[in-house]
C-alpha cells in the first residue's frame, strides 16, 4: 500500500493513520461489510466538479444504491433537495460526529448504532478533526472518506489523487456497490 501524506501538509495526525484505498474494491468491501453505515455529505459536495457531474451526485448514487441513510451538513441539503433527495437528516457535522461516537445512538434512521461512517465533501481541516474525534472516541465503528485527499484520521482514505482517478474510483464504487466485496482490507 502506497504511503500517503495529509493533503494539508502540516496536518500530521500521529501513529495511527488511514489505510490508503488503492482500488475501488477495497472501498466496496468496506461499505458492503457494514451493517449500519451512514453517509455524511458536506457542502463542498455540491460544488466540486467530477467530470460532468458533482461529487454530490456520486454520493447520492451510493446512498440510493445501498439505501444508506444520509446526514447533510452545512447547507448541502438545499442541493440534495434539488436532486430530489429528501430523506437526509440535517445536522452540523460536529453534532453528527458526537452522536455517531455514542454507541447508544440509533443512527439517523433509528435502526441501530452506526458501524461505518462514509464521509465526503467537508472542508479538509474540519473533516480531519471530525475524523479525529471518531478515530479516538468511536472505537466500535469505522470511517472511510471518499474525498480525493488523504485524510489520515479515517480508517480508509484515498491518497491525494487526481480528479480523473477519483472519478474512476467513484464510478466503480457506486456502480458495483451491493455486489460482494472481495478484497481483503
Amino acid at each position, binding site marked *: 500500500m502506497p504511503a500517503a501524506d495529509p*493533503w*494539508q*501538509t*502540516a496536518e*500530521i*495526525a*500521529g*501513529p*495511527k493513520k488511514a489505510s490508503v484505498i488503492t482500488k475501488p474494491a477495497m472501498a466496496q468491501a468496506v461499505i458492503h461489510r457494514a451493517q449500519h453505515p451512514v453517509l455524511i455529505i*458536506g*457542502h463542498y459536495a455540491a460544488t466540486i466538479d467530477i467530470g460532468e457531474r458533482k461529487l454530490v451526485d456520486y454520493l447520492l448514487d451510493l446512498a440510493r444504491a445501498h439505501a444508506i441513510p444520509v446526514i*447533510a*451538513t*452545512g*447547507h448541502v*441539503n*438545499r442541493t*440534495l*433537495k*434539488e436532486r430530489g433527495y429528501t430523506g437526509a*437528516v*440535517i445536522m*452540523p*457535522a*460536529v*453534532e453528527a*460526529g*458526537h*452522536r455517531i*461516537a455514542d454507541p447508544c*445512538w440509533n443512527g439517523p434512521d433509528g435502526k441501530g448504532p452506526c458501524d461505518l461512517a462514509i464521509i465526503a465533501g*467537508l*472542508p*479538509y*481541516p*474540519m473533516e480531519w*478533526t*471530525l475524523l*479525529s*474525534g471518531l*478515530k*479516538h*472516541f468511536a*472505537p466500535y465503528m469505522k470511517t472511510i472518506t471518499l474525498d480525493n485527499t488523504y485524510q489520515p484520521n479515517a480508517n480508509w482514505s484515498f491518497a491525494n489523487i487526481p480528479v480523473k482517478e477519483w472519478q474512476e474510483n467513484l464510478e466503480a464504487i457506486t456502480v458495483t456497490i451491493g455486489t460482494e466485496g472481495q478484497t481483503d482490507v
Partner: protein
Amino acid sequence: MLPLTEKKIALTIKEMESGLGRIRDLSISIGKLSAADWTEPEGPTPYPSLTALRTWDRTLLSRYQPFYMPFCDLCCLCTYGKCDLTGTKKGACGITMPAQQSRTVLLSACIGAATHTSHARELVTYAIKKAGRDCPINPGGNAIGVEAPIIRLVCGEKPEILADLETVLDYCESQITALLAVTHTGQEGDPLDFESKVLHAGMIDHVGMEVADLAQISALGYPKADPDAPLVALGMGTVDTTKPVILVIGHNVPPSVAIIDYLHNENLSDHVEVTGICCTSIDATRYSPRAKIIGPMSWQLRYIRSGIPDVIVVDEQCIRTDALAEAEAIHAPFIATSEKNCLGLPDRTNDTADAIVTDLVGGKLAGVLILDPEKAGEVAVRVARTVAPARKNVRASTDPATIREQVTACTQCRLCQRACPNDLKIPQGMKAAGAGELSLLAGLYETCVGCGRCEQACTKKIPVHSLIVAAAAERIKNEKFVIRTGRGAIQDIEIRNVGGPIVLGEIPGVIGFVGCANYANGGKEVAEMSVEFAKRRYIVCTSGCTAMSIGMYRDEEGKTPYEQFPGSFSAGGIVNVGSCVANAHIAGATIKIASVFARRNLRGNYAEIADYVHNRVGAVGVAWGAMSQKAAAIAAGFWRLGIPVVVGPHGTKYRRMLLGRADHDADWYVHDQRTGEDVYAGPAPEHLFVAAETKEEAMVLVAKLCMRPNDTTRGRAMKLTHYIDLSQRNLGTIPDDIPRYVRTTADIPVTLKGEITRILAQSDWKERPIPDPTLLSRDKPSPPKER
C-alpha cells in the same frame, strides 16, 4: 516599588493619641473597593476560587458534553513524551486523551486570559499615570449605573476609581497562576474538571477585559456608551499616501495616543496619516476619529508590502512576528514599544528622542525598542516626517508584466495550496496568470487571509501572497469604507428599553460577532450575517477585527452596515463596542439585563445570574474565523454565563465542542420556580459551543440558539419564525425539531400555523407548561465559600 504600596486605603479612626500611643477602633482596609454606600447584599461567591463554581459548571457540562476532536494523537508537553494517546491509551503520566484535550483547551484559555489581564495591567498602570489613581471609573456618565457588571458579579466589588482595578487584577493574576499550574504534568486528570477550569479561565478573562476597557475609557476620554460614536475611515484606500504615514499594529493604545497627542501639540494633525491594524487602530479612533483603520490583522502583510507605511510602530498581541523583517524589506523604520514584544531590538528607552530619530533616519538601526509611549510617539512622528519624502519615490508596485514574469517559475507542484489554511487554488491562479489572465489570481485576494504560508511552501520562492495582492491592486484602491468606532458600554436605559422586548420577543436575540474573521471569505460572511440579523431586527453587537470586516461591505446603495443601521443597543442596531477587550461590554449587557432590567443582585452572585442569562437572555456569540488563544478565553467566558458560541469550520481545531443532545429528552428539564416541578423545556439553547460549516448553516444555528426556556409565547413565535425562515431559505426545508420548541399552540408563528400544526400532529407532541426556569437546584448545598 510595588504598585501595591499605593493601593486604595480606607481609614477610620475613632480615637487616638499622637505618636501611636493609644489607638482605638482603628480600622484600615486596603484593597477594599466597594463603595461604602453599596448596600447590595453579597452573594455566595465573591472572588470565586478554582472550584467555587464547580457545581454550576457541572450543571452546564452535563447538558453540553465535550466532543473531543484531538488535533494530534500525541502529547509532547513533558520530556517523558511524546506519548501516544490514541484512543484509550494513557500517557506516561496516566493522562487520557479527553483529559489531554481539555488540558490543552485550558492552556489556551490561560494564555488568552493572561494576555487580556496583562494588557489590562498595562492599561491600568498607564491610565493611573495619566489620569491619577483617583480618576473615577466612568464608562458612561449618568447613563450608566452599573459601571462594571462583570467585576460586580465575579468579585463582588463595586470599583469606583482606577486604583480599585488593581486589586481586581491581583485576583485575576492569582487565578491565572493557579489555573496554569493545573496544566502541569500530574495534576488534574478529569476532563470535566479541566473543562470547569476552562470556564473559570474564561470568566477571569472577561474580568480582565472589563478592567482593561474601563481603564482606557475612563482615562482617555473615549466615547462613553455612545450609540452615535463617530464614523471613521476604514480601508487601505482611505490613506492619503501623499502624507507621511505611520502604521500602528497591536492592541495597547498608549503609543498611538502619544502619536496623536504629539501631532496635535505640534499642529501636525493634518500633515501625517495615523493608520492602524488590529485593535490598536480601533482604540486610536476612539481617542481621535482622525485616525484611520486599515483592516483586521490579516491586512498586515498586504499593507506593509504596499510600501505605504513610512514608520511602523508595534505594541502587543496579534502582530506578525516577522513584522520587523517585513518593515525592513520596505525600508520603513520600526519601533517596538512593549516589554512583551521586544523582537531582539536595542532598547533605546533611556536615550533622547533626537538620538533615536537620528539612528533610525540614518539607517543605522532598522528598528528600536522604546518602552516609553510618549517617546515612541514623538520618535514615530519625527521619523515619519523625515523619511517620507524620499520613500514616496521608491514605493514599488508590482505591475502585471512583473507578475507574469514571476509566475513563470511555477511548477504547479501545489505545495502552496497544501500549505494554505484555506486550501486556495493558487496553482490555478498561477497558471492563468502565466497565460496573461490575472483575474483568477486577483480573485484569491478576497479569500486570502494574508498568512504567507504559501510563500513559505513554494520551493520556487515565488512571492505568492505579494502576487495575489499585486493582481488585486485595483480592488485595494477601492477599499474605502467607514466603521462606527467603539462606543464602549451599553447604557442602562438601553438595557431597560430592550429588556422587555427581548422577553416579549420583539427582539428575537442578541448576537455578538467577535474575534477575527480569518477564514476564507470570513470577512464577507460576517458582514452578510450581521446585516441579515440586523435586518431581522436582532441586536447585533461586534468588536475588534470582526467589526472592521463588517464595515468592509456595502449594500446595493453603497452603504456600509454602519451607515445602514444605528449604533444603538436596540432592535436592528449594529453595535460596535470597541476593541477586543470591549467584548466585556457584550457579556456585561447580558448581565445588566438581569440586574438593571430584572433587578437581580449581581454582587458575588455568579451562578444565579448565569442561570438567569442562560435561561432568559437569547444571546449568541459568533467567532467566525476563530484563531487565537484569546478567542478561546473569550468564548469560555461566554460559556460560563450559559451563552452559546458558534464558530466557523476552523473552530473545530479548538479541540472540542460542547454539544447538547436534543434527542435526550431528560437533558432538557428545568426547574419551574413557580410550581417547583421539573418541566421539559426543549433543547434551548441546544449547544454551548458548535462549529458551523458554512455561513448558511451558521445563521440557522444562531437563530435556533437564541431560543430560551423563558421565552414568552410571543417571543418564541417570533424566534421560531426566523429559525424556520432561515432554515427554509438556507437548507431548503422546515427543521425537523420544531416540535421540541413549540410548547403551546400559542408558540406557533401565525404565518406557519397550518404547516406546523400538521408537523405537530404527525409527532407525539403534547402541549406543555412554560416554566419560570432555572437549572439551579435549591435543595443542594451551595458550593463552599472559599478564598
